[in-house]
């Protein structure tokens, strides 16, 4: 599965808007994840996950920054996220199902912040892109 030229254009152009609110979007995505999929909290016993927590904000920023790295190397996400892929495979070992949950929550956050931009075509492009990113992050699992 790889992105068409049109899909790449949509993602890169939307990213320039998204990046101006990157931290807020990252934090909100995680808030949605932990509200809707409380089982995801099991990976963060060491965090204060209450709304407004500094750790939540910091981690949200990290997650969105990684998505941004993938966007900047949209023609070779595997290379851009190679270290992160190893981290998830050998250290974090987050069950792959959670990437679907996180991706879904990011899509909801984007839809909520950018309703006019989040057309059906944009939705399709982002869904595909995030599943490529998820695939890269789980490709070394076994």
């Amino acid at each position, binding site marked *: 599965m790889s992105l068409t030229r049109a899909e790449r254009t949509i993602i890169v152009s939307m990213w320039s808007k998204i990046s101006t609110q990157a931290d807020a979007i990252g934090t909100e995505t995680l808030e949605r994840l932990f509200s809707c999929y409380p089982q995801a909290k099991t990976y963060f016993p060491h965090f204060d996950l209450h709304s407004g927590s500094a750790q939540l904000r910091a981690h949200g920023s990290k997650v969105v920054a990684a998505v941004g790295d993938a966007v900047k190397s949209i023609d070779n996400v595997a290379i851009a996220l190679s270290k992160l892929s190893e981290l998830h495979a050998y250290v974090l070992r987050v069950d792959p199902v959670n990437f679907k949950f996180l991706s*879904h929550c990011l899509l909801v956050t984007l839809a909520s912040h950018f309703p006019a931009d989040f057309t059906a075509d944009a939705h399709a492009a982002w869904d595909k892109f995030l599943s490529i990113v998820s695939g890269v992050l789980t490709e070394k699992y076994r």
Partner: protein
Amino acid sequence: MVHFTTEEKAAVASLWAKVNVEAVGSESLARLLIVYPWTQRFFDSFGNLHSESAIMGNPKVKAHGRKVLNSFGNAIKHMDDLKGTFADLSELHCDKLHVDPENFRLLGNIILIVLATHFSKKFTPQMQAAWQKLTNAVANALAHKYR
């Protein structure tokens, strides 16, 4: 059995009162067919599904989307007995329509995304959580009679 708290029921009902069933229903089904094109396999009789604009404008997609979301309205009236409420529809989707239940989860998630585009900041994480629980429960209820 899924239990919805008073707060969850109130959250769902308060948003539902403002939902444009025609718009959200047709857009959700259209997005399903666009974002996950393999789902078009169930809709050979729907005519032109060849492009995003064809799908979004397709009158059969609109009509069917409205029908599907109306049944959500029914779910909201019977949140304490979704399995009973959807028993007949479950048998229909299994025995006659042969729809993989994974599709109910896909559509449920798309409905949430469409609600997010319509309600923006009002579709808070807490609101999403209540609705997520509902769409998950409806998907499970629709799959309950599969054999």
